[in-house]
């Protein structure tokens, strides 16, 4: 349980948000040419880092917009929040 500073609405309770998993996983440009192994990598395999991780979140009970977050999963400390399409901050 923690507070999240939505880039559109400001600081709100984490309950209003939904975690969308690892960020910056790019959808395959040519899906028809992907091998089964590449599909498995894209769909299922995750870094699941203990430490600083890049994630997508959605303000489901607010503005319903997606944004990115850099969070330390070992203590739930949020390091940075940035909008979709913006360049991720360097660590």
């Amino acid at each position, binding site marked *: 349980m923690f507070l999240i500073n939505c880039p559109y609405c400001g600081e709100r309770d984490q309950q209003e948000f939904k975690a969308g998993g690892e960020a910056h996983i790019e959808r395959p440009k040519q899906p028809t040419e992907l091998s*089964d192994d590449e599909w498995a*990598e894209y*769909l299922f*395999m995750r870094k*699941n880092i203990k430490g600083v991780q890049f994630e997508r979140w959605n303000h489901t009970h607010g503005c319903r917009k997606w944004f990115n977050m850099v969070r330390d999963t070992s203590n*739930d400390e949020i390091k940075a929040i940035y909008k979709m399409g913006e360049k991720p901050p360097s660590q």
Partner: protein
Amino acid sequence: MRNKYSVFSLIKNALSYHENWQRAWKDPKPKKEYDAVIVGGGGHGLATAYYLAKKHQMNNIAVVEKGWIGGGNTGRNTTIIRSNYLWDASAGLYDHALKIWEGLSQELNYNVMFSQRGVMNLAHNLQDVRDLKRRTHANRLNGIDAVYLSTEEVKKFCPIINTSPDIRYPVLGGTLQRRAGTARHDAVAWGYARGADEMGVDIIQNCEVKGIKRNGDSVEGIETTKGFIKTKKIGVVAAGHSSVIANMAGLRLPLESKPLQALVSEPVKPIIDTVVMSNAVHAYVSQSDKGELVIGAGTDDYVSYTQKGSHQIVEGTLNAILELYPIFSRMRMLRQWGGIVDICPDASPILSKTSIKGLYFNCGWGTGGFKATPGSGDLFAHTIANDEPHKLNAAFNLNRFVSGDLVDEHGAAAVAH
């Protein structure tokens, strides 16, 4: 040779004020090299070592544990054991474990306090009714005892449940597996540790894995806080930290680690003599032998390794508990805690070889691994010893995420995630 626990040893030790009991396992320093090393000294890891030594004659092996044995999810779960899963592959896996549970105390000469008090799963809406009836039929086709109960039969089996039709999520029926029940979690870890230690397995506590040394496509050993240990076979049974170990070897797994919470009340006289689970309203409860109500809550839906979890998750579970059991309204809660569970996209575990020779993973048990402890250890030991899965865990390989042959058990997992 280890002394056998019996009524005679109890009397003998009582005469010396219980001051001369033999140690249950040694505290060895790591050797330079082992035939296999198990990473993780929880129930599954210790069971794996036990069966490697017992059934596959691999006695020059070690279990390395970063904390103390049984101090992770083995000591944090709600101890429910059942095998009423939907698909054939899962039914085979979980019922294999349940059959071992039935003789485990005798096998280990250690009372794991296995109690077949039955597990009841409740239905609260029409879809639940259809799903649970389907699951009951599937269970019976697989030789697993399961019956479907009407609302009246639910009330008769567990009278303290509120079956009034005017509650928010009325009880429309339920299923019952009578062979299911609970066991004492610490005793499972200690019993397997004692058994494995007796057969020569080194159980090395306070020894954290810091790296995995590879030579091309095979493993050479592990770097630990107690130095380098050479080995050709590494079995990783690290639950919520499986991805952390996988990342050391340059592998990615289809897992996300999330906090799962549980809580216990103050101890009271016997009031509930079974285990009742409700998937839809997310509440499950049983009573420990000490008299505490043991209540399982849900997972937070974001990746976290904090071992705590959010307050609203507990609040939601207790709301549901109070609606189903108004009699508990004045109970005080004693403790609340969290454990980190590794969740697979199909809510089924992975017991598998990997693309790296000599590296094996037993993970992805998510919210329900305790029940499988003996079966998981047995099958994982088989996989490590033969470098091939047993037929009961063949479906639970890593390759299913490539082939698409998933074992979707979200419905039977009983914890929404």
